[in-house]
């Protein structure tokens, strides 16, 4: 029956168009960009990874980097011509690559020696991949319009799929239990699904596209597939055998597709240099970033092999031969990093003692709270849902406002040294004062010194469209109250002059905006 005292709710300003979403914040945490120029100046055409390393293909080289340190571990250079699709097996022991001469080679990653060479393809081999489930099964796709399946020990392909009418530039195994099936995309604008078990060597499903297919990718479910053809990415439903959706967010050809966040996000890279992240239910762009050169390959490299593992690196290979690796630090790592930086800063500033004592104090407190936790385990009665602790505390200025000490509340909230100083707090208070007809009361009765913070704040925020209404009101009161003392005080004079300048600039800008609006109106009127 008696109302409870609660804190004054903060003013909710209209959300601006550029507010960061959670997704954007997540992708922005991929920091520490490492730009690795290719020693061959060839574009970076392919990125493959396993749990502790990733391999990139650039020109006649394949470079293997450490997943953990991002350092170069190995370089394989034994190619006669430009290499393609250096694919590292998931155990990290062997690597397969094709090249422009049509040769396919399997390397031992440790010794870099050639374990196997196939020369069955006579045209450049663009795709070579290990099966995700079977260690000895590989596929290859070549400009000779064929897709082949290989067994590591044998010399001849186990199956040769014929059906494409043009170069086959992308292929991959289906995921999970469907991994004996293959999907491939070709420059004859088709995506074909192959099943070696039919024994007919012809495709079991064909999707016709409008343009040459640059990349194909299957979602982890295995029932949905993505195909990039020119600047669109088509979402294909394998069960219903029909396209579900077309993603047309890229301006130029989409060259590469990759899954991220455990298969819940799609990353695409295009020739216009954009890398975009899509969510996989409505296929909306959730994040987009631009690279300096056309993007040829993208990959999100997870931290571990476990399904649904966090993304660790975002690797992007570009036409210019530069590989960009951005890395996201996990929580513990980031904390360690911050601590290290702080310590270094303290060392440089010469306040390492203070820093150390603070650290020790924090440690002690953590230990004591841990002890308390241990004690708490044996409690007989646990009081659940203690709502009191959750209630927000009323700030001192809010209490002053409630008790009609308006001037004091304003002083407190304007104190820039205060821990919780925020312009939105000041705005909230000023609007609350307006609601209580108390703005003038709060501004009245100040002297040369105490009026300064108010004037300063008004000057600082009068140009913000969200603050302008209340700033104008406060300024009118200030002028009315203190204009007569301007002559006798230098500070006041300066502050009012600054205010005058700010308002002048704003009004000029408004005038220009009005003129522009008028011009546009006449233009649109002409077109009607």
């Amino acid at each position, binding site marked *: *029956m*008696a*109302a*409870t*005292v*609660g804190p004054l709710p903060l003013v*909710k300003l*209209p959300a601006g168009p550029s507010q960061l*979403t*959670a*997704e954007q914040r997540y992708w922005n945490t991929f920091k520490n960009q490492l730009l690795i120029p290719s020693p061959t100046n060839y574009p970076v055409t392919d990125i493959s990874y396993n749990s502790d390393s990733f391999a990139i293909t650039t020109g006649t080289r394949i470079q293997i980097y450490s997943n953990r340190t991002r350092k170069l571990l190995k370089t394989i250079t034994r190619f006669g011509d430009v290499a393609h699709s250096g694919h590292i097996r998931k155990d990290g022991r062997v690597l397969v690559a094709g090249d422009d001469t049509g040769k396919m080679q399997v390397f031992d990653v440790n010794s870099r020696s050639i374990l196997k060479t196939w020369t069955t393809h006579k045209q450049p081999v663009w795709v070579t991949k290990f099966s995700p489930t079977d260690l000895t099964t590989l596929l290859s796709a070549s400009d000779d319009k064929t897709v082949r399946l290989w067994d590591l020990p044998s010399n001849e392909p186990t199956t040769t799929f014929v059906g494409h009418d043009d170069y086959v530039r992308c292929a991959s195994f289906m995921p999970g239990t469907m991994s004996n099936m293959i999907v491939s995309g070709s420059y004859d604008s088709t995506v074909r699904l192959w099943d070696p078990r039919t024994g007919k060597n012809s495709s079991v499903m064909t999707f016709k596209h409008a343009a040459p297919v640059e990349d194909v990718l299957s979602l982890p479910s295995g029932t949905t597939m993505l195909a990039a053809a020119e600047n669109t990415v088509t979402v294909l439903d394998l069960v219903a055998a029909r396209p579900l959706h077309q993603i047309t967010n890229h301006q130029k050809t989409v060259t590469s597709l990759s899954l991220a966040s455990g298969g819940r996000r799609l990353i695409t890279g295009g020739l216009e240099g954009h890398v975009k992240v899509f*969510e996989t*239910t*409505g*296929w*909306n*762009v*959730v994040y987009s970033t631009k690279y300096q050169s056309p993007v040829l390959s993208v990959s999100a490299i997870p931290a571990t092999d476990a399904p649904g593992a966090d993304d660790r690196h975002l690797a992007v290979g570009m036409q210019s031969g530069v590989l960009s690796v951005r890395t996201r630090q996990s929580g513990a790592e980031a904390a360690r990093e911050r601590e290290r930086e702080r310590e270094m800063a303290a060392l440089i500033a010469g306040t390492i003692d203070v820093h150390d004592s603070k650290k020790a104090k924090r440690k002690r407190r953590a230990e004591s709270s841990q002890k308390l936790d241990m004690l708490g385990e044996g409690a007989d009665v646990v009081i659940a849902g203690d709502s009191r602790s959750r209630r927000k505390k009323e700030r001192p200025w809010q209490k002053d*406002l*409630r*008790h*009609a000490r308006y001037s004091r509340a304003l002083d407190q909230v304007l104190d820039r040294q205060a821990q919780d100083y925020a312009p939105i707090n000041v705005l909230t208070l000023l609007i609350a004062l*307006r*609601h*209580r*007809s*108390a*703005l*003038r*009361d709060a501004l009245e009765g100040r002297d040369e010194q105490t009026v300064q913070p108010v004037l300063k704040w008004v000057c600082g925020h009068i140009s913000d469209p969200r603050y302008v*209404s209340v700033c104008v*009101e406060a300024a*009118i*009161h200030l*002028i*009315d109250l203190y204009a007569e003392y301007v002559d006798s005080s230098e500070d006041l004079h300066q502050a009012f002059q600054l205010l005058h300048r700010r308002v002048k600039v704003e009004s000029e800008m408004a005038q220009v905006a009005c003129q522009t609006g008028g011009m546009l109106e006449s233009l649109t009127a002409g077109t009607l």
Partner: protein
Amino acid sequence: MAGTKGQKSSADKPKKRKREINDADSKAKRHRRDVKANGAASSQEREKASNAPDNEASGTLVAANGDEMASRPLGDLANKAASETSWRISKPMGGRMLDIDPILTDDEQYLILAYNTSIQVYTATDSLLVRRIPITTLDSSASQGSKPAIITAMRLSKRSSEMVWVACSDGRIYYINWTRSKQSLWSFQTKSGTAKAMVVLPIGGPKKAQEAVLVAESDKSVRLDVMAYLRAKGQKPQAKNLLSLKKHGNALQLLESTNDGRFLVGALNDRIFVGVLPSESVENLDSLQHEFYSFDAPDLITSLDLKMGTHMPAKTPNGKKAGTIIDVVAGGARGGIYVYQDIVARLLALGKSKSDKELIQAQKFHWHRKAVHSVKWSRDGNYMISGGSENVMVTWQMDTGKREYLPHLSGSVENIVVSANGSSYVVHLDDNSAMILSTSEMKPTAYVSGIQSATVSVSPPKDLLVKRVWTAPEHVRRPIPAAVRPTEPSRLHVCVGNGRQATMTGDFSAPLLQSFDLETFTSITKQPLARTQPTDVNITSKGVPIDEPLITHVAFSADGKWLASVDNWKPSERDVVSVTNDVRDQFLRERHEIHLKFWEMGTGDQPAALVSRVNAPHATTHPEAVLDLAAGPASSCFATIGGDGMVRVWRPRLRKINGIVSKGADGQELHTWGCSQAIPVGDGMGEKAVVELGSAQPQGAVAFSEDGSTIFAAYGGIDTGVVYVIDASSGEVVKTLEGLWSGQLHSLESLSPFLVVLSDELRVYDVVGDELRYGITIPEIPGVSELMQLAVDRQSRHFAVALPVKEVSSIGVFDPEEPEPLLVRSVPHRVVSLVASPETSCFVALDDCAQIWIITEESEPSALAPAQPLEDLRLDGPTTVAAGTGMAALMGEDAEMGSDDEGEPAAAVDADDDDDDVDMDDTYASVVVPQQLADIFDAAPAFAGPSVEDMFYKVTSLLSAKPLVSASE
């Protein structure tokens, strides 16, 4: 019926469109008909010229299809409809608690509250209404224009705790047994025909116990007579004038006495008088001979209390009064509390010289900003308790002067009563609520609340006895938004403020929504829909009350899931004095805060959750007022019309972030509301329309057709009368209907295929047939036309109109086919809110005394639910007790008997305990603890409780043996 009509109207849509193409043609037709109608009317006019004062207006307003139906003032129709029986209006329920000390019975079982025209008895244990005893209540059958007398004082009888004395403003004094509902009231009239205050004195010894009523009468505010009346059987009461007093002023008359009646204290304006009875016992009226002393207080007195102390044996000049000390406390209109200690002795000392002009010095306590509404001594005399418009109850420790506060009450404190044993306070707040607080914990043990909407002031507020910078309007000047949720037809949602004073002072402010259950007649919740600061200081440094936003419209969506509200706040002109004159208007307009809010209704009593807030839903260069809000009948959608000449349609959509639907805490999909269509109406279309209207305030109303396919929007300045017909799906204005309203537009409703428009005339227009069915001129009532209201009931296909006529209102129920009203009744108060209850065909009217009237069709079975309380609450019929309605009373009367019964069986069980514990259940299954019975009978008030059959089975299950299955376990 509704369905077929809907189809019909949609089938007619192509036809309508066609008509739009050759609009000019149809216009011409309409014009022609108007001319013809005018011709028909003119003959009528001549006949009616004598009793139709506004010939001009009625000339244009005629029934278009019938020659025999002519325009006539609504008042004429009242007599004709008197014989109609199919519709009826209930007796009033609820009301406004008055500024009269509530009575808490000595056993603290019952709380008796005084309302405008009745007294109501509540149980103090569970805050439920036991009975309502109408005293001067008028129902709708009373002769038109009569105003009931208002209760001015209420005292418990000193001789019998079952009786109360009630004084009314017309000078009638009633002697009432509050434990019985139906009775013949014994009453007499005071000599002067007025009664301002009253006390009751016991007279006579133990053998011939009688009591005298002392009434403060005053026919002029400068004069006060204290008259004593002695009740005598079967004849006029003996009367005796005890005191006549004159004092210039315009304030209150107060009268208080000690329990034994030996000491009296009263006040007239700023003069306090004290009466002392020299003899210990008074046998008859003649020996009732008080000695009076009077003196001037430093302020106008607004409240008084006195206490009798006996402990200090003092030497007084008059030996008879040795050992009694009378301490008087008086609250002033300027906030001071004045304590006169041992006033009798001091007066006696002073009285020797007979110079009552000399001021008696008082001890002054000052904390209250405005008038002290109530001040009382605690029972032990160590504390005094005061309250005022700060919404704080203050406890003063007399020895130290220390104050303790009970702050943030929901309204200003009107009355404080200390219970007989001092263990609880009864606090009456001005938001039409009263509660019983335990003095030890300051926690409420009972709470009684009526409808808290704005009401007319019965007496001048105590705060306004001295000149203030603000004034409170005497009347409610605008309709109070109210709505009934379709899924809960028994609940009325009314917009209320933080107490009456906060609501009425300054600009009207009402930021809260009260939901009120009509079946149990209790307040369920009160939820803020707009900004409100009940915990903040509610007055500016200049002494002006702080205005809070006013909710101007509320509406529920058809599925009852959503609530839309519009609130409105503008800064006071006093705050912008430093702005130069020419931009002041603009400055204020730009700072006008208008919000449209969408709320998701919770299940049960959970509060509604804010889903979306739209700042300035209609805006040009500055926020424009929202003129009307309507809920779509089919889907979740609302339409608003604003001062910018736009009709906006609002719909919910799933809240998505990056295309992913946001889910709430329990996994339900979240929604957000946005404008889906903006349709410019008015001649200038959009912004320019405002310019053209110039100074005239734009008026507008909006309504959906019953199938939701069409939106009707009326928009314009004074005297345009245009209604736009908008296709809801395409958002195009398919047709404009002209001349449908004139003057001030009040309401527009659709009752397919009819359109009902209430302005200075009532017009019913057939949209499909494109013709005016009938029109009725509303007699001109200056000043109160804002309160004209219209509600349509789509279930029974009727509509109701409420018209304020001076201090009273008439309510008419119409059939859109027939210009003769089905029912016209007069309500002795102004109706401030009229809503139709969906699902059950009835109308609910709320008047400015917070009373509810329900208008139902007699043959409608579904209407019974909300009408049930109006079956006189079943509280004042002889059958009610038998039917179990007065069960609480029944239980109360039987309380002693019950407790006797309880003792015996319990003892029997104890005796048997020694033998066999196991057998106990079976052998003494018929032992019923009274508590269990009470649980069944007191679970709900009788009118809301389960059926008699259910109760019977519950009781028998208590008495009968347990079933075998459970026994074998």
